[in-house]
């Protein structure tokens, strides 16, 4: 093999250099700051300087009913949204992949369009849709005699957020999966077809395995992203009714920036990180093993 020259081998590091410089400056350093901060009791705009309290903030979070309620709201959201988005996006991507090119561009744009809309406008729009009294959905449903309390009944509120999120984010996942599908060389399909494999076989033995790294990406990003949900609940329900949709990131945000308790907010962020890391690790293992 000809690439064994030292220059060749170490030139690899140069590839990483630009990114790692930015990464260290703007991610690692702030993270360390956040980690250190989580061990302190510090209120912004306070007459007192920060006070080291070790794991005090973590202890407070783990024994706080608000923390668990917020975490539970987030987990409910994650459990509902991740399978729906991934499976939905996969389905749409597969369908679009089988359509002639002209229509393909149109469909890809159509499903992706909602993702382009900013969260504040999407929030205004869906608040109108979901309004019990004069919302768009209910004004059509009332012809069937149904009246749904989309946002004001606890059993519906989170589901409404999930539905809106599906509309808003499925396009993103779909575009990534579609790009992944495109990368699978035709030759593999042709070879399999010659061997007599039908569509289902081809999907499970060619598409899925070759799509695995990209699929893993979509699933993990979906988990990571949905654990950090904030914009939708903040804009549409503001955490209501009765704090049932107040997700953890909203609670962290309020703690740090409205209650000015930066140390406590940092600690909760790290706890959230642990939860996400565990869930993601499980996914990595599950998908990589096969």
């Amino acid at each position, binding site marked *: 093999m*000809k*690439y064994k020259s030292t220059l060749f*081998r170490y*030139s*690899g*590091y140069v*590839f*990483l250099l630009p*990114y790692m410089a*930015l*990464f260290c*400056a*703007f*991610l690692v*350093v*702030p*993270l360390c*700051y*956040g980690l250190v901060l989580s061990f302190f009791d510090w209120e912004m705009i306070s007459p007192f300087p920060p006070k080291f309290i070790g794991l005090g903030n973590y202890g407070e979070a783990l024994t706080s009913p608000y923390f668990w309620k917020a975490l539970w709201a987030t987990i409910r959201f994650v459990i509902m949204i991740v399978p729906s988005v991934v499976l939905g996006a996969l389905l*749409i991507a597969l*369908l679009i992949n*089988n*359509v002639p*090119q002209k*229509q393909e561009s149109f469909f*890809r744009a*159509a*499903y992706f*369009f909602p993702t*382009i809309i*900013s969260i*504040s*406008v999407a929030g205004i*729009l869906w608040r109108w*849709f979901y309004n019990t009294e004069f919302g768009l959905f209910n004004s059509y449903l009332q012809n069937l005699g149904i009246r749904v309390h989309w946002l004001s009944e606890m059993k519906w509120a989170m589901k409404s957020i999930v539905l809106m999120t599906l*509309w808003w984010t499925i396009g993103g996942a779909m575009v990534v999966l*579609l*790009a*992944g599908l*495109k*990368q*699978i*060389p*035709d030759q593999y399909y*042709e070879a399999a*077809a010659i061997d007599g494999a039908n*569509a289902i076989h*081809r999907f499970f033995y060619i598409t899925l395995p070759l799509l695995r*790294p990209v699929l*893993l*990406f979509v699933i993990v*990003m979906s988990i990571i992203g949905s654990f*950090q949900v904030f914009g939708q609940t903040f804009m549409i329900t503001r955490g209501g009714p009765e704090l049932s949709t107040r997700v953890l*990131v909203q609670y962290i945000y309020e703690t740090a920036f409205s209650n000015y308790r930066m140390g406590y907010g*940092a600690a909760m962020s790290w706890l*959230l*990180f642990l939860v*996400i*890391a565990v869930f*993601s690790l499980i996914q990595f293992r599950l998908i990589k093993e096969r």
Partner: protein
Amino acid sequence: MRNSERGTGNEYPGEQQEMKTPGKMIVLFILGLGALVFLVPVVLIFLTAFKPDAEIIHFYSIFPKSWTLENFREILGNPEEIPIFRWFLNSVLISFMVTSLVLVVDSLAAYGLARLHLPGRKWVFTMIVATLMIPGQIFLVPVYLILNRLGWLDTPLAIIIPAGAGAFGVFLLHQFFLGIPRDLEDAACIDGCSRLGIYRHIIVPLSKPALSTLGIFAFLGSWNDFLGPLVFLDSVDKYTLPVGVALFQTSYFAEYGLTLSACVICTTPVLIVFLLFQRHIIKGISLTGLKE
């Protein structure tokens, strides 16, 4: 068989095509229905922007009873109070710079991590991906302090440079690069070549779908970014579009008409970028086309 006619892979030289058409029609129908559902809310936004504020509040109907341009006029016609062209220019510049930065820096790093035998690369990669799992608010204060030290606050640099540190691009491209068959690189390098050569002449052309996808996301993320520009920019004429547009929304109520018409103005460039980039997410490269 030509790539452009490839379907599910059912076609191979010689197969009959009778069973194709009804299958295709069903697929088109389902997709079409779905597309309608997805597009209707967007169309509503556009339509509502043409309604006068007084009518919007009544939510009478989908189509405006009286079409009006007053919302657009108020936004576009007030450059002193609402310097929307300035904000537009800022957004365009910043988003393009961010996209370029991310595409270059992240693809280099992702290739390094996916292919090169660097010791500890698994750990580095894990650490990079792990940073995605930390809620963004925690970065706000420390990054602000760093930017303050560097003197970049209230300049576009404050938005552009930190964007290059995001792990999303590295993660995405890393997964895509894993999917490129290794033998391609080996085969193309029989006479010996530099890493950079492999990167430029093989990886980059092969990853057009991936790079285009990342480009779209990078642009979109930067265009819609709100919290960063809000906190790191002070002067109104340095604002980007989302921050400027937020000036119509008070904490008590929203001026719906203005907000929605601003949305129309904000969304159009992203749509254009998307349409431009997505052309690169074409059908996969046929292996037989490459020189062996």
